């Protein structure tokens, strides 16, 4: 995929800015508050219909403005598609794709493939399990739209089950809990299976990208849910676990076992990276994971996703930066940095209301 142009009106520091990026690597240079990350946010919002890392949409609207407008055109699947988003302050947003309102937002999932890479992602190895589950789930949704549907179902079933436990307390009616258990087990098992498929698909690309960014040894995922017994189907196993822990769940008033509590970990030469490796090695592995996701998505669709890299380089050892730049895919990449001396790509100078090719 490729972004042809982007136009932001009243988005954060920009009153109005128009950006016509180059193919390949686009390096956005500017000081703090220049609005370079805003350009990435704009591209990401148009492609995924949601903001970065759960930033409230109101935050995107320039201070004092009545609303923000984001517009852009992607070259994707052999055609050109225009996306427009209006974010009025205090009321519902409006999204148009090629001038028409999409029937359901769910239909847009995966239409415009982007991968976002943020400094927090460097903590993939050492952070809590949530970030790793999200990595696997996001990649699954990018590869198989059905995965996004079952993730949604599992989350809804879990939230409903927890709401029921909270409201009913220890005297909850067993027959009602039974049906929420069944729904969560069914959807949760599918979520688990998609995570497994992602781990299988990402194996070889991860080894390759790990070497490209200068890592040594063998990196791989290890995922062993505590609820999964031997010789049981995942759905049956989740149902069993929920049944076994029912007493505790009734007391805690929330769901204490299931795929939402799993901890998939990364290993280096068979040992957990989290405890065995230095911070540098952990970050290298995290970076390799993002790049591997990009490779897998690109191979699967026969089209490179757009990569948005937000201020990651400054977090790395200088020695690793060149390896990272070489490992970037052939597709369109947007990279923000405060470092003016970056050797590759088309360099853009960014300031409020301004994006121009740097001399």
């Amino acid at each position: 995929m490729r972004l042809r142009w982007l136009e932001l009106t009243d988005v954060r520091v920009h009153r109005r800015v128009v950006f016509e990026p180059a193919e390949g690597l686009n390096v956005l240079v500017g000081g703090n508050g220049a609005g370079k990350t805003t350009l990435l946010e704009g591209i990401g919002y148009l492609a995924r219909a949601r903001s970065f890392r759960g930033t409230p949409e109101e935050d995107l609207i320039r201070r004092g403005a009545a609303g923000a407008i984001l517009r852009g055109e992607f070259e994707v699947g052999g055609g050109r598609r225009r996306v427009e988003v209006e974010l009025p302050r205090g009321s519902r947003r409006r999204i148009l794709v090629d001038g028409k309102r999409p029937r359901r937002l769910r239909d847009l999932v995966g239409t415009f493939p982007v991968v976002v890479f943020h400094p927090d992602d460097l903590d993939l190895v050492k952070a809590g399990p949530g970030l790793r589950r999200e990595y696997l789930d996001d990649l699954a949704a990018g590869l198989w739209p059905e995965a996004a549907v079952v993730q949604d179902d599992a989350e809804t079933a879990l939230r409903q089950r927890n709401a029921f436990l909270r409201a009913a307390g220890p005297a909850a009616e067993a027959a009602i809990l039974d049906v929420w258990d069944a729904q969560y087990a069914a959807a949760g098992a599918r979520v688990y299976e998609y995570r497994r498929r992602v781990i299988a698909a990402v194996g070889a690309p991860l080894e390759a990208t790990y070497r490209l960014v200068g890592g040594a040894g063998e990196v791989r995922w290890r995922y062993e849910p505590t609820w999964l017994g031997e010789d049981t189907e995942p759905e049956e196993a989740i149902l069993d676990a929920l049944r076994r822990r029912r007493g505790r769940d009734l007391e805690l008033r929330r769901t204490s076992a299931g795929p939402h509590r799993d901890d998939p970990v990364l290993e280096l030469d068979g040992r957990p990276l989290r405890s065995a490796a230095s911070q540098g090695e952990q970050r290298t592995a995290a970076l390799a994971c993002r790049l591997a996701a990009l490779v897998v998505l690109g191979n699967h669709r026969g089209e490179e996703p757009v990569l948005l890299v937000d201020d990651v380089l400054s977090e790395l050892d200088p020695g690793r930066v060149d390896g990272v730049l070489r490992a970037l895919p052939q597709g369109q990449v947007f990279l923000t940095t405060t470092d003016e001396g970056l050797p590759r790509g088309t360099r853009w100078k960014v300031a409020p209301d301004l994006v121009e090719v740097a001399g």
Partner: protein
Amino acid sequence: MFEPPIQRLVDELARLPGIGRKSAQRLAFHLLNTEEADALRLADAIVEMRRSVRLCSRCFNVTADEECAICRDPRRDPSILCVVERAQDIPVIERTGTFSGRYHVLGGAMNPIAGIGVEELRMRELVGRVETEHVAEVIVATNPTLEGDTTAMYISRLLKPAGVRVTRLASGLPVGGDLDYADEVTLGRALDGRKEL
């Protein structure tokens, strides 16, 4: 801001679903500029509807009488019940022309997040009807959402001891949507292809 009587109407209209600020103003001024008799007829229709319409004592469909037209119709087969979430779903299924039994309006689907448990739904009434009306089959036509599916599962387990056949509309309906999102042909096919739960 408009003159208080106009503003009051604009505010009321804007509270209706699907009506924004702009449309509310347009409607209010239309009612102001139209013949007085036309505007009053609308007000009258609203009052009349609210005063006369109540719930069918048998199936909880909306009706102006003790029982709704479907429950009173002797040609309808009382041994088949179609369970829907809302009274609005009944005309949608009626349009398919494939269903000749009676209905039961639950009043929603199980949704603890929204504070709706089985006590808030007409479950006990459903069990009562299955026992007293010699029902042989219950078709659960709740919305194809996770909550609608869960409710269908609960109903099928609830009615198991009664020995009644419980079925669910075949898939093919738009997932996650409302029933009235489906066209008649799709919905008719889903009724014909219903499966035992």
